[in-house]
């Protein structure tokens, strides 16, 4: 029994080696030039619709005879670990979609191919700045903007109307005033005009940027946490003021716990700062509310500026070890080019990667609030160690401490600044 098993294992192993060996031999003779006949592309699950990718693949394969595109959909769970090992492996993907806050972390140590000299060819002159920054380390380009989305104000039209409010607020002051009216109509002790989860640092940080502050500054290569600056402090204080006045949402939770849309659905909250597609979730759970959820850019300091929004999304990049540099580049150029970017924003209501397309997209009422918010969008510092700051939860801790009053705004910001300064200046 033992012998048979070992023999089977050995045989299978031998077969596996033989098969892979065959594949390796046959890769050289096909494809464009002398590149392998298979192009492996990593895309994140849920980013682009299937039909878009199918169209791109068909398009690509028709101009690259003999090359087959192999799409591998990646899960978000433990994507950093998976990417780390894959880029270190012998069979790294050729083209990969990579979350924009992770790009610098893999680019700086040499995991991604330098695309600086192709920037013009890719139309990089017109990329939306916040997006382009996330794929750039120093003055080198590694990631090409793929898509982005921002959060917007979701509000219950029926509750606003019942409180005598005709239009969504245009400024933060209007929002506060609306809060007074809504509370007069909704007397429940746990009613919120706006849900304000303490750990929701994308929201709080937007106030920092609205007031001219930032997360960190870079002076001649020396990074420094910037939350203690007077501008940032003003933003943090304003955020605390808005949240304390308008929200009864659990102060120490993140935005999924309970989901903000649940609060909107039950009428425990009249508005929230959330992704636009969440309206679909409400429509599914509570069909009666289908037409009662409005979308608007989140109000800013003045009526003509929305609150600057975090530009969350992805870049496209090429693995440094790719054996198909030309095919990979062609594919990346096709997928990030105008034709498919247009299809992408039309189908998925996301933000495209260039200013010209953004203008075109703004014609769509479903995208307009998002586009408005994106104009003044902000992005996390372009530093290889930034993702460590996020994973350390230093920012969540700061916002929770401020909102619960456990620390003063100044003390909480100082603690976060220390973490940021120390982490970003690591070798």
């Amino acid at each position, binding site marked *: 029994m033992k012998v048979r098993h*070992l023999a089977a294992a050995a045989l299978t192993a031998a077969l596996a080696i033989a098969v892979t060996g065959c594949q390796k031999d046959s890769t050289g003779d096909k494809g464009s030039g002398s590149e392998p006949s298979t192009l492996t592309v990593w895309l994140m699950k849920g980013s682009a619709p299937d039909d878009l990718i199918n169209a791109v693949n068909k398009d690509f394969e028709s101009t690259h005879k003999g090359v087959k595109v192999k799409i591998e959909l990646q899960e978000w769970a433990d994507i*950093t*670990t998976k990417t*780390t090992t894959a*880029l*270190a492996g012998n069979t790294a993907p050729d083209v990969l979609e990579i979350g924009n806050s992770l790009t610098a*972390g*893999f680019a700086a*140590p*040499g*995991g991604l191919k330098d695309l600086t000299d192709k920037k013009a060819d890719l139309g990089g002159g017109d990329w939306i700045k916040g997006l382009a920054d996330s794929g750039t380390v120093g003055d080198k380009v590694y990631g090409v903007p793929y898509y982005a989305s921002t959060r917007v104000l979701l509000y219950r039209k029926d509750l606003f109307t019942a409180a005598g409010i005709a239009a969504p607020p245009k400024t933060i002051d209007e929002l506060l005033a609306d809060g007074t009216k809504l509370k007069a109509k909704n007397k429940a002790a746990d009613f919120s005009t706006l849900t304000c989860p303490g750990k929701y640092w994308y929201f709080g940080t937007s106030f920092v940027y609205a007031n001219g502050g930032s997360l960190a500054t870079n002076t001649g290569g020396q990074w420094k946490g910037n939350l203690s600056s007077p501008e940032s402090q003003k933003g943090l204080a304003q955020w605390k003021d808005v949240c304390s006045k308008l929200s009864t949402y*659990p*102060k*120490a*939770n993140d935005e999924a*716990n*309970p989901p903000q849309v649940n609060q909107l659905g039950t009428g425990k909250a009249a508005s929230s700062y959330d992704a636009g597609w969440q309206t679909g979730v409400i429509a599914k759970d509570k069909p009666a509310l289908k037409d009662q959820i409005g979308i608007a850019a989140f109000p800013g300091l003045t009526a003509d500026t929305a609150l600057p929004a975090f530009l969350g999304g992805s870049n496209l990049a090429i693995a*440094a*070890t790719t054996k198909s540099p030309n095919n990979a580049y062609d594919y990346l150029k096709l997928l990030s080019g105008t034709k498919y970017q247009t299809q992408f924003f039309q189908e998925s209501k996301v933000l495209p990667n260039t200013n010209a397309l953004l203008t075109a997209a703004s014609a769509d009422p479903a995208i307009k609030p998002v586009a408005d918010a994106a104009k003044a969008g902000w992005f996390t510092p372009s530093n290889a*160690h930034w*993702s*460590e700051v996020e*994973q*350390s*939860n*230093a920012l*969540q*801790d700061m916002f*929770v401490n401020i909102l*619960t009053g*456990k620390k003063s705004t100044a003390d909480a910001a100082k603690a976060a600044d220390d*973490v940021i300064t120390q982490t970003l200046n690591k070798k």
Partner: protein
Amino acid sequence: MSAGTVTTSRSSRRALARQVGQVRKQNKAAYLLLAPSIIAMVVLLGYPLYRLVDISFQEYTLRELFARTTVYNGIDDYRKLFANGSTFPTIALRTVIVVVAMVIGTMVIGTLVALMLERLKPFMRSVVSIGLLTSWATPSVSATQIWKWMFDSEAGILTWVLSLVGVDLKGDHSILLSGPAILAVVVVVVIWGAIPFVTLTLYAGLTQVPKELYEAAELDGAGFWLKFRGVTLPMLRPIFLLLTTMSVIWDFRTFNQVWVFNHGGPNQSSLLLGSYSYYASFVEHDFGYGAAIAIVMVLGMFAITFYYIRQMVRGGEAS
């Protein structure tokens, strides 16, 4: 079962003498039997372990990993462990405290449940056994998700139960905001997962203790505690020794529970050594430092358990 034969200690001593007389001849046969396990372990653990040690003397970040270069930096990674401002000593101390709590909790509760099982009627014993097998079969990642879930600051059932007795874990008091609170729950989760193994093993051992010994003790007027100390404990000493040692080793390596709860946060305050090594490697991408943590951890565990392992090895030798 034919294994019911009782071998006298004299005959086992005879067997021992016989075996000792044949040392040279048996070496070859023994090595032949051991060969598959040794080859597998050397190739798939020994060699990677050598690499781990090697990495711990290198500057090994994503840069070196991607470029496949080797940059030795002496004992820098180890120096970093004890440098000013390093969190390693704190985390090491924290790990020791948590492991002590886990091992004591596991052994005490496991022993009590095993003693209870022995006294139960067959039906109830089956019920409890099935309960234990159920929790044993649950993957630790799923199990930890559920425990986290039950302690959720809003919808958690245990949060609600505890609020009835005046323990407030809601909102600002969410366990996820406090390292010690997370670790307290992690201790409970680990004990929960460890009890089936410990209990069923101890129960199996209890059924092998000759009842005459208890009867003799009762004649001497011994109560529950005296019988436990005078009969059960000495009779089951080898089992306790093994279970405690294995618990120490397994609990030191606790990873899933810590990682699933809050990835070692807030602010690294719930990291234990196992998760700290992973954190250094895959969050901070400092694989050299992560390796150094793991090596020091193994050495520490060895130092703590060596005395007992030697006893177990000797105990085995006498058989």
